[in-house]
């Protein structure tokens, strides 16, 4: 992965890991893997070509514009990286050959090292292929798992956590649908839309089964229960009601069936029902979306189509990812495996994310959404590490 410069230690101890920054000798620093540098170099060449096209007067379309801004930021980072690297190498040379300048060189070396590390990390981050939905707003679907009423209460807690998280970041959000259980203390299901572009990128690691361990409010004998709730994170594909109508058009009539949930009878002026529930069945995928929260059937339909679109897009992405992984034939564990991802242990005031083995002792902080970022960031770091590994393979 990294070559340790000068001092021959080709095999990194495992605990240092990919981005581990443990330096035994102050003269050590890590260069990026040659294959990564080759990629950066390619970007630089790409930009030269684009520049030539531009000077010939060819207009840029939106797509080229995007790649241009991407590769040009890679280029500037790559140049900065090279410059810092040369500088460090020079200083190292100086320290070893010229005893008179050793102290000065040493302090300068120490000063520029953190900057080098940051630049090299940023460069690596840029080189990773961008997530297809990274810019999207997102939709969270929550459902109770095992544990009866306690699971429903936990689903409500999770919904509050994500709402708190959105509020903490001053992001716009709205609850698309929310069905309470009969006794009114928990949720049978809920759909939350967070309308901030890029919210998907942050929250995508939340997909999976969340487990809670606590003494439920419904427990009379004081025993600790374990219950679960499932969270699904979807990219928001349809942004407005207008889009939703167009999205309805984009399905073939034989692909979908729209049911309005109404008893028979003559309808029209004969009755004045307030039941506005809509159910959409998408035959090719077997996805069924039902929506009843709005007073207008029309709005329910638009919402249902937005959710259907989101589910289809996420499914498509997963399939693509799986086939790519199968093509590489690697057995890398993925970050979005569908089993238990996180435990909320109330008696111990502990939250553990099982994918990255990250533990935080602040239930209150996380479930209010304020400290959720800490968990998400550690997950993002691990995902970053894995993705860069797959880039080199």
């Amino acid at each position, binding site marked *: 992965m990294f070559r340790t410069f000068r001092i021959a230690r080709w095999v990194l101890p495992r605990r240092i890991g990919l981005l581990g920054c443990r330096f035994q000798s102050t003269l050590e620093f890590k260069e990026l893997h040659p294959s990564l540098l080759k990629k950066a170099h390619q970007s630089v060449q790409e930009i030269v070509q684009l520049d030539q096209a531009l000077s010939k007067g060819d207009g840029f379309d939106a797509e080229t514009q995007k790649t241009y801004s991407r590769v040009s930021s890679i280029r500037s980072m790559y140049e900065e990286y090279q410059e810092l690297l040369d500088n460090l190498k020079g200083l190292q040379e100086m320290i070893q050959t010229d005893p008179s300048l050793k102290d000065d060189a040493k302090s300068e070396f120490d000063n520029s090292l953190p900057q080098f590390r940051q630049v090299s990390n940023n460069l690596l981050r840029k080189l990773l292929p961008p997530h297809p939905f990274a810019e999207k707003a997102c939709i969270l679907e929550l459902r109770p798992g095992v544990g009866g009423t306690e699971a429903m209460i936990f689903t409500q807690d999770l919904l509050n956590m994500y709402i708190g998280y959105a509020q903490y970041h001053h992001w716009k959000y709205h609850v698309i649908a929310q069905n*309470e259980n*009969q*006794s*009114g203390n928990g949720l049978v299901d809920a759909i939350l839309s967070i309308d901030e572009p890029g919210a998907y990128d942050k929250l995508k690691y939340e997909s999976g089964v969340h487990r809670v361990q606590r003494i439920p409010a419904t427990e009379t004998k004081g025993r600790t229960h374990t219950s679960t709730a499932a969270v699904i994170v979807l990219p928001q594909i349809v942004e407005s*009601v207008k889009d939703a*109508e167009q999205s309805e*058009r984009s399905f073939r009539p034989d692909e979908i069936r*729209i*049911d*309005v949930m*109404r008893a*028979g*009878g*003559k*309808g*029209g*002026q*004969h*009755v*004045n*029902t*307030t*039941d*506005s529930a809509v159910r959409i069945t998408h035959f090719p995928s077997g996805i069924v979306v039902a929506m*009843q*929260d*709005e*007073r*207008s*059937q*029309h*709005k329910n339909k638009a919402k249902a189509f937005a959710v259907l679109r989101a589910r289809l897009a996420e499914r498509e992405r997963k399939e693509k990812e799986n086939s790519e992984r199968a093509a590489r034939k690697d057995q890398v564990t993925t970050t979005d495996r569908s089993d238990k991802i996180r435990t909320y242990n109330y008696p111990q005031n502990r939250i553990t994310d099982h994918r990255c083995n990250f533990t935080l002792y602040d239930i209150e902080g996380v479930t209010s959404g304020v400290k959720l970022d800490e968990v998400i960031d550690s997950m993002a770091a691990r995902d970053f590490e894995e993705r860069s590994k797959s880039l080199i393979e």
Partner: protein
Amino acid sequence: MPRVAPRLLKKALKAHSLLPLLLPACRSIEQSAQEFRWIRNELPNMKQVRQACLQRFKLVPLQYILGNQPFGELDIVCRPGVLIPRWETEEWVCELSERLLGSMGPLNSPFPIWDLCCGTGCVGLLLQRRLGPGCSLTAVDVTDAALGLCVENAHRNDLERPRLIATDVLTKKIVPDSRISLLTCNPPYIPKNQFAADTSPSVKRHEPQLALIGDLEFYSSLVNTWIHHTDSFVYEVGDRRQIEYVMHGIRDDPRLQLEWCVGYRLDSSGCPRVVYGYKAESSLAGALSGYGDLLYIPPGAGK
């Protein structure tokens, strides 16, 4: 009205003390809970919520209690004395406006729309909102309450004030000042002999009979008078008989049979809901031909 099972009442009472009041109108716990949520969202304090539930117990329509009903992207004010917009109407108007927009794009030539029996004005106003400023709306109704509400709704949804004509479509002869592009109408279509049996108690008790009871008279005024002033029409219907009446009226008329196409449309629950027609030569033919199923095509018009 069928009774509500005591078991259900007990269950509703457990969820909230006001919920049993909503059961006679809603029939199920889920729907009652849903309505209760809407009432609580719209009304500021518990006192008014309780009042609303008591009214609902008397089967007063929710739209009259809350004073509004969403219709497409519009928010339509509803008041006793004027028919409440139905979801079936919303459905056909939405589909119609999308078809018109899809085939014509934003309007640049004038597009006069006449909405007969306008009531709250929902049909015409939603078309106006969607088709843009190119269309000019004329709303016709016999009651002043309806026309007043129509203006209020236009204002509330930031739409241009429609031209109003207070008249009885059936008895007075109106000659439009210019050719109508689209004629819409949601006439009363429940035959008097079916009113007692087929209409739900809430509608029977609280909505105006003037807007409900009628049969073929409006369809007859369409094929005899109005059709000569317009390029296309869309009328809501209550049953198949009314569709056939319009179709026969056109097919059996020596002049109309040469130029008019007639079709019908079902709503999502499978009931006949709309009869529509257009001149085969008109620019609207492309938009309207796929709107429903065609019943009659004039000879030589081709497919």
